[in-house]
């Protein structure tokens, strides 16, 4: 946001070009190899290199607060296109997310793609993967509507083809179709927002939107905001526009799911931040309703996303629903920031924006980790149904360990990264008393109930996901014979896990960088030094106090307490105590087996009952008797329960059904007779002539 010196430094420029070139290389190089294994290395190794370069570029731009302008060679030839790249702090931050996740995922993909050797084209996977990442990088670097939309579409198309990569599976084609239709719907709204801006400024460049003279009238800004929220909200998976997300993410190969969930939906957040805070920055209380709309949509997404994640049996679908939840939290923070900005509470707006962007970064780290973990489970067992897993902690210790780190992080537990952004979001919610509007104050406290409920259910969801998949007895042959995944996959997960830990116990790394890249209040720049704490100043009713938290110190204290506890246990239990391995207590019946342990469905049953209004659970019991005359002796009994997506059922199905019915009716005029069509032409012409006459 803040204007800083424009730097056209040769070093940055070369980094940018080298990064882009690596991805192009990664896309084209595998085409030259015949063997799948070589093709996989040839596409993912350049991708990893490209992401390292991207990280270097983005991190140095974000930390220094510098901006990079990249003119294109043919720019002089066609000045009217204004096709150039411009990377400021905001772009650099999101570019960093792309780089960090891509690094982990590229390493992981080298091993993961062996799943497809001989079955699918690795060349196509490598090509699309690299194009997908490159288009996302260029989306963040775009500085005008034209290039933004071109790369936005490239991103959508590449990901669409990746979603239907395993196209022999019919459900994947269906989810691909839902995805592409919803994406175009979203793009239409985004285009609408940009067109409204274009009509106002007469230029397609982002610069002109940013510094529009005279300032845009309020109604234009309102229109732009609503169109952008719907458009980018569709891509982000904001409820009720989320329909495509839980279908598309699980359909794609797991390495791509990781990218889509951790990075692609962040591009929508980037667009939303760019439009709301950069182009139409809220500055008067009149725009507070934007923030409230985002708070409502965000908390609704968070709650509904996590509620559906809680009852899901498919591990990847559950993760996809959890992305809806997390994007809700990000948008909640962004909305609070807009509310605070509208009332000119700059310091609080900085806290809320930090919460929102920090959560984006964290979500990128832990969600890519969890999707890679789910991919490893799929790789090892060939199933993503939690009911068929179990006991994997012993068979796949590394995967289990890293998945546990991801689960702790996403459940927002100290000392890992999810907790830091959740803490900041809570502080932003608690600071809402400073907003001078009682209606807003009370509404925000309602939003905070939804937020806290989300946090509680998220914990339960990930206990279930980790516990059912990795602990207790294996529930199927597939899980019994699971094996640990190849080293590159473990390494990929390790990179993401390291990010979860680093952003957790060293928040100054990320907080300082976000502060400088978004030009936030300098109170966060102090956070660059280790041991300093994140803090928020309170002043209410004559009481002033500082709420603060220092994760490095918390981590150190936990470490010292752990040392003390171990020391105490050694001293107090001085006599050597033995440990005997014996079977689980079975109430004396003997022979506990895997059919007696809790399943994913039974574990979440209480939650399903409490929130039945959203799930509409249906239970069907089918009984088979030995003889028709005697209903008391049963041969078999089967209970099936299913839950529904209320939004799909109540919102989308009627609309889709009505649309199809409408077009069925319209087909009546399509008779196939030429004379009828000629009549239509004549009638249309006559009506147009009449209209022209009336107007003139």
């Amino acid at each position: 946001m803040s204007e800083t010196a424009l730097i056209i430094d040769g070093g940055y420029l070369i980094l940018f070009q080298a990064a882009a070139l690596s991805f192009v290389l990664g896309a084209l190089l595998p085409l030259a190899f015949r063997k799948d294994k070589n093709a996989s290395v040839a596409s993912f190794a350049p991708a990893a290199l490209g992401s390292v370069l991207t990280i270097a570029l983005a991190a140095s731009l974000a930390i220094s607060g510098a901006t990079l302008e990249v003119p294109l060679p043919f720019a002089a030839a066609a000045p009217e296109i204004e096709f150039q790249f411009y990377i400021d702090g905001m772009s650099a931050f999101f570019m960093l997310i792309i780089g960090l996740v891509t690094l982990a995922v590229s390493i992981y993909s080298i091993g993961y793609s062996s799943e497809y050797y001989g079955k699918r084209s690795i060349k196509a996977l490598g090509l699309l993967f690299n194009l997908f990442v490159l288009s996302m990088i260029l989306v963040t670097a775009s500085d005008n509507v034209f290039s933004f939309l071109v790369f936005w579409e490239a991103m959508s198309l590449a990901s669409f083809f990746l979603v239907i990569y395993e196209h022999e599976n019919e459900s994947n084609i269906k989810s691909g179709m839902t995805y592409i239709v919803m994406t175009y719907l979203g793009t239409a709204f985004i285009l609408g927002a940009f067109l409204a801006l274009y009509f106002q400024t007469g230029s397609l460049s982002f610069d002109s939107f940013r510094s529009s003279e005279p300032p845009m009238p309020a109604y234009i800004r309102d229109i732009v905001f609503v169109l952008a929220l719907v458009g980018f909200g569709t891509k982000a998976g904001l409820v009720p526009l989320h329909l495509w997300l839980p279908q598309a993410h699980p359909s794609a190969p797991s390495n791509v799911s990781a990218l889509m969930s951790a990075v692609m939906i962040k591009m929508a957040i980037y667009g939303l931040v760019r439009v709301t805070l950069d182009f139409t920055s809220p500055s008067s209380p009149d725009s507070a309703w934007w923030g409230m709309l985002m708070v409502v949509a965000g908390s609704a997404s968070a709650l509904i996303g996590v509620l559906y994640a809680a009852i899901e049996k498919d591990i990847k679908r559950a993760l996809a629903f959890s992305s809806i939840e997390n994007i809700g939290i990000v948008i909640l923070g962004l909305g609070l920031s807009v509310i605070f900005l509208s009332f000119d509470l700059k310091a609080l707006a900085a806290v809320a924006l930090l919460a929102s962007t920090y959560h984006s970064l964290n979500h990128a780290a832990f969600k890519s980790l969890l999707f890679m973990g789910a991919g490893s489970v799929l790789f090892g067992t060939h199933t993503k149904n939690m009911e068929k897993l179990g006991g994997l902690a012993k068979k796949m210790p590394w995967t289990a360990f890293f998945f546990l780190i991801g689960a702790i992080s996403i459940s927002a537990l100290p000392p890992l990264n999810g907790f830091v952004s959740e803490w900041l979001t809570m502080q932003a919610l608690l600071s809402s008393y400073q907003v001078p509007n009682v209606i807003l104050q009370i509404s925000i406290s309602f939003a905070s109930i939804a937020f806290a409920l989300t946090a509680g259910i998220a914990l339960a969801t990930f206990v279930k996901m980790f516990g059912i998949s990795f602990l207790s007895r294996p529930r199927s042959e597939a899980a019994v014979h699971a094996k640990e995944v190849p080293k590159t996959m473990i390494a990929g997960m390790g990179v993401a896990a390291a990010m979860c830990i680093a952003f957790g116990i060293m928040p100054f790394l990320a907080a300082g960088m976000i502060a400088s890249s978004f030009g936030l209040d300098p109170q966060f720049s102090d956070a660059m030094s280790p041991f300093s704490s994140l803090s928020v100043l309170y002043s209410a009713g004559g009481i002033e106090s500082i709420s603060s938290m220092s994760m490095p110190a918390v981590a150190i204290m936990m470490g010292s307490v752990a040392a003390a506890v171990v020391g105490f246990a050694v001293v107090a239990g001085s006599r050597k105590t033995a440990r005997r391995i014996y079977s689980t207590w079975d109430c004396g019946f003997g022979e506990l087996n895997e059919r007696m342990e809790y399943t994913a469905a039974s574990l979440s049953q209480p939650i399903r009952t409490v929130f039945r209004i959203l799930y509409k659970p249906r239970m069907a019991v089918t009984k088979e008797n030995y003889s028709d005359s005697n209903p008391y002796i049963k041969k078999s009994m089967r209970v099936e329960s299913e839950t529904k997506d209320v939004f799909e059922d109540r919102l989308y199905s009627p609309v889709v059904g009505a649309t199809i019915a409408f077009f069925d009716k319209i087909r009546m005029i399509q008779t196939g007779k030429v004379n009828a069509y000629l009549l239509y032409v004549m009638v249309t012409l006559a009506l147009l002539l009449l209209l022209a006459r009336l107007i003139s």
Partner: protein
Amino acid sequence: MAEALTIAVGIAQTSAIVALAPLLTGVMRKVKARTQKRVGASVLQPYYDLAKLMKKDEVVSDQSSWVFRSAPWVVMVAMITAALFVPAFLPFSPFGTVGDILVVLGLFGLARFFTMLVGLDVASTFGGLGASREMMISSLTEPALFLTIFVVSLSLGGTNLSSLVGAAAQYAGFAEAPSMLFALIAFFIVLLAETGRLPFDNPATHLELTMVHEAMVLEYSGKSLAMVQWSQSIKQLLLFALLVNLFIPAGIPASLDSGWSVAAGAAGFVAKVVLLAMLVAYVETRAAKWRLFRVPDLLAMAIASSMIGVIFFYL
């Protein structure tokens, strides 16, 4: 130097919490026994139990993984670290700028996360049953607790526990801040839920109809069981301390200058906590375990109560 002294006093406070927590459990059992016209075991019984368990051999399920073995340690570490941030008989914790009330709740969450995993790890139906019930109760307790903190933080300023307790000591009671009264009601309900008391959970039984917490940790024995039980007592004392210091702050010493005021503060704290413990134990003898699906109603009441507190604050 003064800094080092404060830290030393703070660590002493934490050690006292850790050391006295089982005593509180003993007192509550005694009160319960007396109200039921039983003699009951000595109030020191929890210590004897812990000492005995520490020396016993362990039986570990062959189905369990490293999660089962590490969980008691994680839970214990989380609870003691939380104890470092909670002011008990002093008006402050020296680590107030390191961790606030949200960190304390986060650490409780960490402990709960591992306890629920343990329930699933041993592959018995009991464990799953406990984890499943805990999932529902804890996910509903969370909003009630956060909203209570919302009210407290609005009324007293911020989330820093030391300054919250300091501010609480200065205000003149519920007449001045009626929203706090509603928060107190909510916090009391949450406290019953979080410490696994009736009507949510019955800490004394091992019956599949009533177990929640006990079901999850059923497979523990020996040293691990001792640690799980001790951690549970520490959590209980911490929640009692929070309630007492935030809502009934009378008698908290203003500073550390005079030894007498500190001693009086400590005595007052112990008296208040014991009174509260007796109240909770008495409530337990009067209440029956509720059906699991009635529990959300009670928690909804807590949420509603603190929501009224929020509205009271703003109007």
